[in-house]
């Protein structure tokens, strides 16, 4: 650190910065599309890889929902597709658990962490802060390729003779630590652990970059108080990832040794299925749960915070109003970040934890409702008397708010330790987390994709398809997860292969059928989005104006065709906050307009006509 000042003196020499790639005239296919170091291309790589994984995981949910709704019927096409895993046209128990485990793992890590945070942090941090690229474009590239490698290892595990991991995305020991415990606990879990380790490296490389870029690469005038809320959200998300993922890595390493080298961190002298006593001494499976949930709980904020940032930005832009309580929004993200680290044991209320310790975790958990509620009220007050433009992005943002409220309220039940005793490991939990972090984070992602698609590909997505996609998905989400609350309150447990064996759960057969039909419709509605997305990349309507949503933030001042370095000329300077909509008679006021120069901006005078004009030019 003693040379800090010396290096600051050298900043004059920045012209000689070693950005070799800036000096190339043409890039080869490999450097442009494959091993790209351009943050915008890396964002697209994350997004498209995430979409592929989401399709795989979505189809998995169709398969296991079919099993839950029709446990007695046979579907010969399943045997044709999966061979021994679906003998006689029925999904086997081992296959069912592999599907559920992979569904969770893929969606939590590959889709909603890498696909959401990876896409939008990469795309928006440099563009919205006025940076040419990330602090380290090379590390950014590595981050994607570690993610890719991690996915590749996970994909390989599907084709093992014993199949992929089947002990749940939480990988609890002893089930996952003992290879003989289940088919999926054999090589599948080793692949799972290796894949997740690679994934953690990817998250850490990405997070390092996001944080250093936000701290160091903001353009002139872009003070912290002027940053868009998207960037704030990505910033805190990266901090959470950086502090919590290494702990999962440690847990994973210990688990690998327990599995392969005969150590006893999580294993004790339990009796095997063959009646033998295990040689291990005094291991503690609960220890794994503590280590796992020290990541696992912050992980849900890693998933939801970027969605919150995106939604805040889109709600303000499309309400043509400043975001209500900008500072409160930032501080509430900070509060969620801090408290999020203190609540992990609310996943473990039934592990025999001391009840008074449980109360401490209950209090911290309920405390998170405060910053969350601040955010919800600020979204609602942002909408209040706004001049709302119902673009597909805006609809998904509104849908996010709805889902976040419905899912958040059930969180209060589950976070209370004495209520959790009843609801733990029932479908109530499944309903809760799917709505509040699964579907809600998806809605944030969709909102972001519809909103920033023109920025990524210089074309628009089809609006009509966007509306159809929204309404089916929104109603479908409630159709699938709404009845699950009822199942859960009725005591139907999670993770059961079939429910017809028990009197109490077989009475919910019809509900399970409704849920399955809803799930199939919702999953297949996503193909509308996928068609729309890929079709629009090549055939969408071309973007002719730089700032189609008349947004204030910096990304819309960059050139229409994405170029390496983002701005063909000088980097824009920032003179105001990101959300000055509808102030002093101006419909919007880009951040680049100096104070006193407001009149130079061409504004659409009649605010109501703006919505129509906007709709018109889309058609």
């Amino acid at each position: 650190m003693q040379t800090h000042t010396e290096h600051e003196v050298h900043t004059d020499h920045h012209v000689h910065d070693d950005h070799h790639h800036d000096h190339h005239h043409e890039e080869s296919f490999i450097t442009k599309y494959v091993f790209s170091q351009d943050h915008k291309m890396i964002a697209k790589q994350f997004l498209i890889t995430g979409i592929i994984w989401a399709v795989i995981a979505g189809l998995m949910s169709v398969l296991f929902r079919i099993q839950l709704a029709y446990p007695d019927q046979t579907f010969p096409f399943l045997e044709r597709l999966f061979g021994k895993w679906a003998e006689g046209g029925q999904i086997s128990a081992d296959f069912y658990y592999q599907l559920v485990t992979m569904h969770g793992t893929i969606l939590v890590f590959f889709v909603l962490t890498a696909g959401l945070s990876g896409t939008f942090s990469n795309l928006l941090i440099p563009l919205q802060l006025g940076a040419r690229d990330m602090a380290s474009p090379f590390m950014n590239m590595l981050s994607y390729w570690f993610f890719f490698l991690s996915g590749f290892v996970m994909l390989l595990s599907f084709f093992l003779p014993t199949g992929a991991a089947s002990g749940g995305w939480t990988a609890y020991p002893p089930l996952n630590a003992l290879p003989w415990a289940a088919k999926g606990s054999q090589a599948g879990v080793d692949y799972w652990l290796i894949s997740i380790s690679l994934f953690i490296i990817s998250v850490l490389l990405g997070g390092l970059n996001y944080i250093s870029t936000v701290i160091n690469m903001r353009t002139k005038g872009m003070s912290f108080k002027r940053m868009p809320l998207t960037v704030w959200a990505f910033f805190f998300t990266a901090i959470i990832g950086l502090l919590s993922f290494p702990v999962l890595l440690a847990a994973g390493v210990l688990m690998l040794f327990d599995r392969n080298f005969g150590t006893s961190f999580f294993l004790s002298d339990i009796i095997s299925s063959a009646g033998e006593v295990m040689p291990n001494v005094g291991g503690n499976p609960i220890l794994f749960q503590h280590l796992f949930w020290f990541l696992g709980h912050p992980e849900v904020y890693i998933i939801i915070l970027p969605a919150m940032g995106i939604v805040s930005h889109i709600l303000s832009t499309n309400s043509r109003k400043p975001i209500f309580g900008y500072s409160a929004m930032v501080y509430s993200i900070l509060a969620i970040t801090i408290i999020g680290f203190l609540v992990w044991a609310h996943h473990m209320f039934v592990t025999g934890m001391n009840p008074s310790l449980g109360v401490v975790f209950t209090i911290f958990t309920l405390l998170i409702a405060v910053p969350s509620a601040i955010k919800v009220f600020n979204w609602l007050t942002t909408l209040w008397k706004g001049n709302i433009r119902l673009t597909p992005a805006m609809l998904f943002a509104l849908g996010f708010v709805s889902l976040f409220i419905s899912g958040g309220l059930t969180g209060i039940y589950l976070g209370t330790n004495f209520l959790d005793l009843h609801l733990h490991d029932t479908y109530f939990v499944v309903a809760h987390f799917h709505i509040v972090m699964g579907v809600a984070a998806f809605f944030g992602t969709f909102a972001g994709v519809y909103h920033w698609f023109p920025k990524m590909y210089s074309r628009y997505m089809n609006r009509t398809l966007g509306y159809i996609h929204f309404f089916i998905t929104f109603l479908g989400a409630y159709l699938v997860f709404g009845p699950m609350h009822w199942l859960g309150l009725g005591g139907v447990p999670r993770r059961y292969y079939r429910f017809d064996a028990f009197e109490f759960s077989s009475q919910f057969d019809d509900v399970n059928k409704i849920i399955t039909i809803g799930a199939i419709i919702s999953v297949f509605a996503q193909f509308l989005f996928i068609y729309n997305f890929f079709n629009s990349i090549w055939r969408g309507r071309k973007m002719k104006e730089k700032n189609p949503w008349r947004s204030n933030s910096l990304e819309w001042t960059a050139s229409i065709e994405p170029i390496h370095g983002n701005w063909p000329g000088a980097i824009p300077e920032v003179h105001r906050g990101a959300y000055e909509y509808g102030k002093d008679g101006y419909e919007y006021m880009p951040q680049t307009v100096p104070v006193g120069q407001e009149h130079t901006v061409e504004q659409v005078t009649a605010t109501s006509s703006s919505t129509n004009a906007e709709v018109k030019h889309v058609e």
Partner: protein
Amino acid sequence: MAVDMIPPQPKKFFAQRFALWLGMISMFMAFAGFTSAYIVRRAQSDWLEFNLPITFYISTAVIVLSSITMIYANHAYKHDQYDRFRNLLTLTFILGLGFAVLQYFGWQAMKDMKVFMGGEDANPAGSFVYIISGWHMLHLAGGLFLMAIALYRSFFVFKDPATSIVKNIEPNKGIRMDLLSTYWHFVDVLWIYLLIFFLINK
């Protein structure tokens, strides 16, 4: 649009140093995970108490020494004393390798004391020491790898003083040595932390 028309962005040198510190925090979090697992597991039954082999104290002295030579090497680099820099960096590299070898002997000594990593006679008390010091070794290997690159450059790329001027024109490259030195001290301090941790919580 010709890409080479774009004026580059003034890059703050703080960014790289900052990223390294973030990385070190994150690496430390993995050790925090390991050591808190150690503390929780220690509170359970069947915890074996044993004294660390003397080799680990020698290796500690060696890695502290390598940190000191690294300070001098970095100092020499900054003052353009290239011969001195090369010698000191080589010495640091050898001491680093020496530490790795001594750690290996330490593991052997633990084995001789019947403290095993895995298997029927293993106890988590020993397993933790093997795994945590092994995990530390991975971080050391990373440092050695980067140092090997620096050595290669100092012998074959910057070998005559004239080319060393590049360092001052491209300060981005000049900072690499500084980052390497910071990282090496981190690996050193990390080991001292672990040793003290093992001694306190045996």
